[in-house]
């Protein structure tokens, strides 16, 4: 399998704070890669490199290369950032549906990107809600406010929202950390379903989760990538002492 995303010696500074210290890593296409590590280790910052979300934080500096399909996304024209972001879907830690109806939440990405054909939008909304395993639960109340859904449903709605514009990459920043175990299970099932069509990168705190859903795992610590490899290998036979300490729960 080829690398969908590749970073070469990527550094990130927030003002004086050196958040990422030269990360070199390739992320495989159509697989799930988990990023694990203790809080503040840089895993979320790393994730946010791929759709240039870090640009939004003032005083941020980035060096090194971030290649997506071989193209350095930090050398594209500013006008192309929106199309980059269309190609990279993102799901956040807390469910954050927009203050709109369920239908409009999913249709949002289509509308802001200029799709006006009503039947196309309707078809796409249904398709993605089904992809996100939410269609049966919401098909009769598409015009209700998204805030009326439960937390787990909201998070699946956010996944549908991200899928609606057909990205090839899906970034998930602790997507289940705010959910109960049953909702978490549904999200994990969903990730399993989706990985055939998307390259998924998931940041998680939860070791078991990383073990369950991911094919590859990278362990971050203090802004550095300590170890990266097949998930089974990282969890059963890590090469680095820090990785083992973290996985066995000695810190973090």
């Amino acid at each position, binding site marked *: 399998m080829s690398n969908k995303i590749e970073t070469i010696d990527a550094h990130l500074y927030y003002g004086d704070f050196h958040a990422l210290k030269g990360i070199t890593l390739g992320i495989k296409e159509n697989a799930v890669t988990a990023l694990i590590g203790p809080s503040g280790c840089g895993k979320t910052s790393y994730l946010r490199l791929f759709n240039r979300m870090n640009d939004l934080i003032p005083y941020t500096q980035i060096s090194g290369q971030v290649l997506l399909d071989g193209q350095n996304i930090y050398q594209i024209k500013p006008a192309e950032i929106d199309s980059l972001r*269309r190609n990279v879907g993102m799901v956040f830690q807390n469910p954050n549906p927009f203050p709109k109806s369920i239908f409009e939440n999913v249709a949002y990405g*289509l509308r802001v990107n*200029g799709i006006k054909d009503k039947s196309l939008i309707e078809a796409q909304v249904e398709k993605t809600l089904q992809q996100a395993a939410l269609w049966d639960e919401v098909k009769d109340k598409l015009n209700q406010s998204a805030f009326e859904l439960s937390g787990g449903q909201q998070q699946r709605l956010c996944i549908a929202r991200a899928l609606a514009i057909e990205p090839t990459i899906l970034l998930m920043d602790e997507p289940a950390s705010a959910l109960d175990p049953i909702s978490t299970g549904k999200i994990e099932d969903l990730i399993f379903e989706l990985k055939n069509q998307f390259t998924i990168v998931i940041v998680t705190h939860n070791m078991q989760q990383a073990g369950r859903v991911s094919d590859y795992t990278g362990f971050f610590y203090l802004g550095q990538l300590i170890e990266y490899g097949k998930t089974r290998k990282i969890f059963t036979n890590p090469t680095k002492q820090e990785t083992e300490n973290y996985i066995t729960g000695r810190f973090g």
Partner: protein
Amino acid sequence: MIFPESNERRKKLGQAIMFGIARGISYGIVGLLLLILFFIAKQGMGVVNWQYLTSMPTDGMTKGGIYPAIVGTLYLVGGSMLFAFPVGVMAGIYVNEYAKEGALKRFVKTMTNNLAGVPSIIFGLFGMALFVNQMGFGASIIAGSLTLGLLALPIVIRTTEESLKSVDDTFRQASYALGASKLYTIRKVVLPIALPNILTGLILAVGRVSGETAPILFTVAAYFLPKLPSSIMDQCMALPYHLYVISTSGTQIEASRPMAYGTAFVLVAIVLIVNIIAALLRNYFGKKVKMN
């Protein structure tokens, strides 16, 4: 999925236009304010000098100074704060330190908000009914001060409450852990930390009170008094009321225009000074509190 290319251009263009409008409006508003300040400063600066500030008005208030109005405003501000500050600070302490979460606290806060929303002319009516007539003070400094004090009360209560809320709970717990009583903790630990912010609120209340006209119309303000008040039962002149009368109801409105500009300038200067002091206080002590 294929997205129309033209949409990208439209998005960019729409954003550029809307951001331009928003920026233009913001700068326009700020520009308007500066224009008002500049206009009043330019017209008033020529009038205001030491003599203007320290002499009596003469010639039907078309000449002379505004000394009695300044003194009157000082009395009124002082008198109102004498009432509003202690009562307001204690009320703020009650709301933040004593009142338990629940219906009662909500009620007290709602009432404070309502009081803050009462139009100033209502305070004027109320002050007239209660202090001037019912309590028999007549139009006097004490009636006017109390009326203004009531108006300032919610401002003091709210800033005190906010200041106390920003004091970290660990300070209180540390004090309780040493066996101090609640009141002692508030007095010796919480209040000193919150004091700079409370003072900021007090200063802002002073700024507000010194410019209020409607509450003093019927409770204290005198159209023209060629002498200073000798007791708190006297009427007095006041800057905002003075500006109102010489700009609208004098017989020689045109002739007294320069005097009006001068008074407006003094009022604006008070507001500016008050805001600057408040900002400095906040900046200076803001850091100190954090360091502790």
